[in-house]
């Protein structure tokens, strides 16, 4: 049996047995390491975005290449982020940096912990592995139509992620978050001396800084879609499953 680690029905312990319908199926969907990482990230990503915007206020211009300052051509001039969006809530570059650099450690080592634990407990292999069949245009189109009809679960295998979900999670875990971490490291002059190849990977410091910003926008995009789908899929059940690990299969929608 691949896919689902455990199937169990705790509802039948907690409640009197339902006379007519059998209790809806409960699935152990999210492993404890996934849940821990998820909630750490809720706090960490929030702080990284707020403090990052605070840092950006010091020089809200983005360039491409090895260098970039006021008199060089910028590809993007950003507005000043208001205090309610930044950490701290007033302009203080030093404190924004303190927040950002501390939580960068939580963010980076959190990802490392999650990746190692998810290989060991086979979360990646079982739940995120995308088969070639899933990437066929027919399957992708079917999944898009299912999403538009607000049907997010395959009734035959309701605990499994659908392919769009897998693509969103896998690209965030293996591409967007690592890009944010590596471009962040690439902006550090100490790291530039220690790992000279890293900054070259991104085409210079100003490019790394621009990609860091684009990565943040992508991550915000992921969060917005993620939260919208949680709302549509049933927020109580989804959030409960992210806390307890157990998810109750919803009644089928027609």
């Amino acid at each position, binding site marked *: 049996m691949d896919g689902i680690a455990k199937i169990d029905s705790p509802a039948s312990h907690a409640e009197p047995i339902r006379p007519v319908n059998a209790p809806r199926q409960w699935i152990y969907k999210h492993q404890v390491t996934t849940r821990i990482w998820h909630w750490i990230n809720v706090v960490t990503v929030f702080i990284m975005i707020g403090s990052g915007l605070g840092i950006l206020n010091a*020089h809200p211009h983005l360039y491409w290449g*090895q260098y970039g300052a*006021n008199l060089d051509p910028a590809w993007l001039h950003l507005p000043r982020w208001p205090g*309610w969006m930044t950490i701290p809530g007033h302009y203080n570059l030093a404190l924004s940096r303190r927040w950002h650099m501390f939580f960068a450690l939580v963010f980076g080592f959190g990802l490392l912990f999650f990746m190692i634990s998810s290989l060991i407990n086979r979360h990646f292999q079982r739940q995120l592995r995308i088969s070639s069949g899933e990437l066929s245009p027919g399957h992708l189109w079917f999944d898009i139509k299912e999403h538009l009809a607000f049907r997010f679960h395959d009734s035959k295998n309701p605990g499994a992620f659908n392919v769009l979900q897998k693509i969103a999670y896998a690209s965030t875990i293996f591409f967007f978050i690592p890009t944010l971490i590596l471009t962040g490291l690439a902006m550090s002059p100490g*790291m530039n*001396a220690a790992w*000279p190849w890293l900054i070259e990977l991104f085409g210079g410091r100003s490019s790394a800084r621009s990609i860091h910003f684009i990565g943040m926008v992508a991550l915000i995009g992921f969060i917005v879609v993620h939260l919208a789908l949680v709302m549509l899929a049933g927020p109580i059940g989804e959030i409960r499953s992210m806390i307890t690990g157990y998810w109750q299969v919803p009644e089928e929608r027609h």
Partner: protein
Amino acid sequence: MSSLITRRALVAGAAGSAGLLLSGCDQIAENPTFRKILFSGNDIHRAMQRLLSTDRSLAKEFSESEMSPVFRANGTLNPGTPEYNAHLANKFADFGLRVDGLVNRPLNISMAELKAMPTRTQITRHDCVEGWSAIGKWHGPMLGNILKAADVKSSARHIVFHCADLFHGKNYYTSIDMFDAFHPQTILAWAMNNAPITVAHGAPIRLRAERQLGYKHAKYVMRVEAVASLAGIGMGQGGYWEDNVDYDNYAGI
């Protein structure tokens, strides 16, 4: 539609708690214990970067064609003190760079002597803490050679750079530890982009500490002091920015 109300309540709740969390961040940052933890991030980054670095790990050096067309000047643009103005008026002819503190042979190096020392030329990128960067060419003796000439004592842990400028009325100074002090790219530059350093860029001498951010690259260096501890210097945090605005003392990040 109770589920819709729930969703609305959840969205409102999430937005509200995000706002609370943001203002909570400011409150929690006032807590001394939390502040200590938050500020410890700098020590952790330093320790990790040092694990990945050797004393020979060099910052990237560029070719002339890669230099910034305009190298922006920042911070103090002219110290403007009477002493500095006097030095500037006679082109630093009487200027002597003092090297003292925990050294066996205190020095007073004239500009002529400094320029006669073996020099290192490097085209490097200057990274401001604000986020901008500029590539320029720097020319001057390695700080390590000067410290060797002064026979720095093994008890020295930090090198402090005392500057001519007052920043918001306070003496600008900064410091680096011995790992960076003896780094080959740490030089006391007296020329920039093939000309003597201009006043705006730190005449007559500017520190280049290429593995750290711009606020460590002290301009108008008047005195180099070897110390065992930063406690007695300024407000004890290792530099003007560290003392006054909570900047990281290790500016390699």
